[in-house]
């Protein structure tokens, strides 16, 4: 009703001659047809007779009805038109707000993973239980396609492991990206590789490395099937904060499906002015790839690194690698086994990983790793149940033999949010 009055008022202004001074002598206020008659006057359908009467009891002829209906149609048409326009405007406003909200949502996303574990470990002279957690939180803010910014927080092994890690330098890492045409400029600030120290109960995890982003700036570009990137990164820092070892890595990859080739020279230098270089070549065919690394100034085969990777479907992964005894003699960095532990120079390693979905909710996995010298055998058996895509519970049994045998059983709850 309010809107009707509003729109009627609108007509009052558009038809002032009729409406403002219109008063019909024979339709007094309180008459049973009073509202109806004045509504029609406001709509411009009638103005009564020129003498200021409506003569409501008079009968109508077809001409009069025609005149009423014609004016009526025009008026309601206008009225409805205005309303319809308003509806359209409101609808488009709503969809605009929704669109912007969705965009905003896409541009600012907080997500992460919480893993809580209850575990029992056994070594030859120690056994006991432990409860811990690992929280990963990620905040993404993107500005269209041109730029994005990510803050990551990762508590790594610090959920009740002594609490020595520092927030700013170890738990946080950040990444900023800017795209200019086909060139991407990326700046990351992160702690790099963080080595986990175990207090004795879980020797399998001692010296395990959390691979976090390095402090780095990278420029990358892709043209057709060729990708090129140039990255400068800080590999090690002195206690004062000075960069000790830095690396410049240039990477050129070319995709001739199903073949793929990567040419990756890496240059290292440290604060004493020493330099070194390594060249890594990768050739891939479908799901098989082989990497050959050569260290500058080292002999054959001491300065050689060979690694083969094979993936069959989603479920099977095989890795075999052999590191020359002097491959990383200068400027060491991590080369990892399947359990994220660094392999020393001179070692050979093979690893196998099988994962299988058992029906809708259940899943199982087996992972094994053998490293020589040391004859270190690590194995992991995993049985899990996923409630939905965001949560799963897992039972994991691990054994580790490096001379002495140790094992542990873990119950883990994983939540993605």
């Amino acid at each position: 009703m309010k809107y009707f009055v509003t729109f009627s008022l609108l007509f009052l202004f558009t038809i002032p001659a009729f409406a403002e001074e219109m008063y019909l002598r024979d339709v007094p206020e309180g008459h049973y047809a009073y509202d109806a008659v004045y509504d029609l006057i406001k709509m411009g359908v009638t103005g009564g007779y020129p003498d200021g009467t409506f003569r409501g009891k008079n009968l109508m002829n077809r001409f009069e009805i025609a005149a009423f209906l014609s004016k009526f149609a025009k008026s309601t048409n206008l009225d409805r038109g205005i309303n319809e326009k308003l509806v359209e405007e409101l609808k488009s406003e709503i969809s605009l707000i929704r669109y912007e909200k969705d965009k905003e949502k896409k541009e600012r996303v907080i997500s992460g993973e919480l893993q809580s574990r209850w575990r029992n470990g056994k070594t030859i002279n120690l056994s006991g239980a432990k409860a811990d957690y690992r929280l990963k939180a990620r905040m993404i803010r993107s500005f269209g396609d041109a730029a994005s910014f990510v803050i990551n927080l990762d508590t790594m092994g610090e959920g009740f492991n002594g609490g020595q890690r520092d927030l700013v330098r170890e738990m946080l890492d950040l990444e900023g990206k800017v795209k200019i045409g086909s060139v991407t400029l990326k700046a990351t600030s992160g702690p790099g590789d963080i080595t986990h120290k175990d207090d004795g109960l879980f020797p399998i995890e001692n010296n395990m490395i959390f691979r976090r982003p390095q402090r780095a700036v990278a420029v990358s570009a892709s043209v057709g099937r060729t990708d090129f990137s140039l990255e400068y990164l800080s590999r090690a820092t002195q206690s004062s904060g000075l960069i000790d070892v830095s690396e410049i890595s240039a990477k050129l990859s070319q995709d001739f499906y199903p073949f793929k080739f990567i040419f990756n020279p890496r240059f290292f230098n440290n604060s004493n002015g020493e330099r070194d270089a390594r060249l890594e070549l990768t050739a891939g065919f479908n799901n098989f790839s082989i990497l050959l690394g050569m260290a500058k100034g080292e002999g054959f085969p001491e300065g050689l690194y060979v690694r083969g990777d094979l993936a069959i479907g989603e479920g099977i992964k095989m890795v075999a690698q052999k590191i020359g005894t002097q491959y990383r003699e200068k400027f060491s960095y991590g080369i990892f086994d399947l359990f994220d532990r660094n392999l020393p120079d001179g070692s050979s390693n093979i690893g196998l990983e099988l994962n299988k979905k058992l029906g809708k909710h259940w899943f199982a996995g087996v992972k094994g790793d053998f490293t020589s010298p040391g004859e270190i055998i690590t194995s992991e058996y995993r049985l899990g149940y996923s409630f939905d895509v965001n949560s799963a519970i897992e039972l994991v049994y691990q054994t580790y033999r490096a001379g002495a045998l140790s094992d542990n059983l873990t119950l883990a709850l994983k939540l993605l949010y």
Partner: protein
Amino acid sequence: MKKALLILMVLILLAFSALAQTLKLKDVPDDHWAASAVYDLVKMGITKGYPDGTFRGGKPITRYETAIFLSKLAKAIAGEDIKTDIKSLKDQVLELKKETAKGKSLFSGNYLSSWKAGNLLAARGNSSGAVGSYRLILSSHQGIGDAASVKINLDTMDYGYFDDGSATKVGRGLLASELLDVESNLKLDLARPVDLKITYGPGPKQHTTDPTGVMTSEVGVTYVRPNTGIQISTKLSGADISLGYFSLQGPSFDMSGKVNTSQLTGSVALNLPIFKVALTGDYISHGLFSSDSRDLRAKVDLTAPLGEKIEAQGTVGLGGKEKSSMMVSGSLALNDLWDTGTVAIIRMAKIGASYIDPAFANEEFYFAGYDSFNRPLVGGTVQLGGVLTQAVSDKVKIIGKGDMRLSGDYKYEGANARLTAEGGISYNIAPNANLDAAYRVNQDKGAGDTTDVAALGLLYRF
């Protein structure tokens, strides 16, 4: 055309008519030639026939009856349906706008990733070296109703890989007591509107040492953070009046939260026709209020906008009655005066040797203000400095900064003589990202060395 229109409107109404009733009129059988038209009107609620259940379709119609029919029809056509639509749409718009306003308060801030190489032109046995570091400032602002708001800031300051050499946890950026600061604002509607501001923060934090040995010009750089305290402010006959109580921590930061030094501060600011004048008085004492060591200070600030593009500012500070406890400083800002994209700020200051009270040297370290590199000014010196920014294009700016510190008698010699000059270029590569490159030379006569720093920084605002 009109007929078609009416039919159309009637059809639309039919589709929406919720109040449809199956009323039967005795004298209008279903096979009557006008039956469908009559029942349409009935469905729309425009007529129900006579109370006796007849329509009397052959009877002539009076003008009143027509008026009632048409008026009802007009209401039906203008459409309660549409009006309900409009109302619900308007409600939806309001609701969405509310939600959007809520969502906006999430996070903002910036991330600076910087790479600095120091002592490139190493002289006198200095070695050169590089540092890669980051600084993250994350702010969250949340309004609580119209009268209150909370702002939470996280600032990693120099902790992004800087190491002061101490292996202890102190000096490694404690989250709650160093990195975070919290500000809550409350508008009180007393006899006059009063703003109440409560802040928790570590206070200005100074980068005090340079374990790298290659970034000496960074020593003294201060991250301006709020002190812990409470402030009330109001307007009284045109003057802005505020009164505050703060706990001053100084660089010797007490993590226990104990109030080691209190500051009681009051200020009155007046907007006069040509300039703005602000008078500030401080009472500083050790502990919660102690009579044995205290400092009474006063400051007068004058700000004069000389036209739209020039602003002059002057300050006289009194740390005591003696001439050596006073300071004067002035600055002139030219904001694109010649329409050439040039912005210049020139500053000079003379600070008395005991302007900063020796008994409160730690807490008052920033009281004389900062130079162009955010290093605090010290007592017994004369400081000349400025910043010149020249826009080359929409995206590129050249920035020059310089500061010269002289001895109290205007000579470039002695322990305090220092000259720092920096030239740089800032390139706005994307709306939210800047790439900055700068080169800085620092000559420190006190330390007897000259060092340089080349810096490259990527700044993301989000």
